[in-house]
């Protein structure tokens, strides 16, 4: 599941480290994710998975870790991360 997310994080989260060095539960903000980059990542995730984050997910916590991002996607589109 995380293999699907990592390339998107590398491309849009503008972190100083590669996503494959990060653990699933590691704090992306602590790793250098800015609020602006979190927004870019959100838009990229919506396009890649053909989803729309609902109001209740539009917060800082949703994008805090790869785990939390995966949980959101899982809830919105269960089949998306199946591979």
């Amino acid at each position, binding site marked *: 599941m995380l293999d699907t997310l990592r390339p998107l994080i590398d491309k849009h989260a503008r972190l100083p480290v590669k996503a494959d060095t990060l653990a699933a539960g590691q704090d992306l903000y602590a790793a250098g994710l800015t609020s602006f980059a979190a927004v870019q990542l959100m838009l990229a995730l919506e396009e890649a998975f053909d989803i729309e984050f609902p109001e209740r997910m539009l*917060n800082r916590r949703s994008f805090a870790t790869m785990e939390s991002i995966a949980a959101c996607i899982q809830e919105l589109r269960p089949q998306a991360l199946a591979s």
Partner: protein
Amino acid sequence: MCEACPTLLDKLLHKGLLVETGIDGLYGRSGLFEQVIDGFDRLISRTGADQKAEVLRFPPGMNRVLFEKSGYLKSFPQLAGTVHSFGGNDKDHAVLLDRLAEGQPWWDKQEMTDIVLTPAACYPLYPTAAKRGPLPEDGLIFDLNSYCFRHEPSKEPTRQQMFRMREYVRIGTPDQVVAFRKNWLERGQALIAKLGLPFNVDVANDPFFGRAGRVMASSQRDLGLKFELLVPVNSEENPTACLSFNYHQDHFGSTWNIRTAAGETAHTACVGFGMERVAIALFRHHGLDVDKWPAEVRDALSL
């Protein structure tokens, strides 16, 4: 709510303190209103005198290229005001006049100029400060005041489209900047208490645009980057932000490459005073007749 009762805006207009222009949120001000604004301005200066801030005054328009670089359009495209001017020839001019006479849209030959309306007093400051090179050890502190523009028409007199914002801005290390904001959070409350206004301070967020803006706003709140001093003016339920205390972290420092003496990216913070909002809060709580305001309030404002 009483339908027949005049609103606060009605009262201010009727008393002549504000002057109608036909546009919501765009008002003239009477001499008396300006005396209150000037009095509050002096009170701020006295309160902040020990800061030895460098005074800078910019006009209410800023360099469009610098505005574009500032990132304002990422966060608040809905509030921005750009300045346009006629860019056609004689024939286009004749067409413009014809259309005006016919009441038709006449602005297709209007071209964007190099100036945009200043959205917050500190926006022209950061590129100016960046040009000076690395900060001194103690960082920098500035005193600003500017008319600002935000496109948000409203019937609430406290939400104007063109209004004045006084600011102290701190540029320095994270420690310097955080200490500045903490200090002004206390000073700001003492200052408003002197004016006999009820208030509370609360965590807040800027009106970031759209769905992406929800994430920005949530971050700003979670990190406690913005606090507002709120005074009930239009209603108790939705009190008005009269002062704001903002920690931008390294947002402007990295946008403009402002460096500390040690070569790190500078952090910034500001305290902003909504001049008209405080004046209107004073009229709301002490009455429309300044002569009848409590003596200590008049003293504080040297009225």
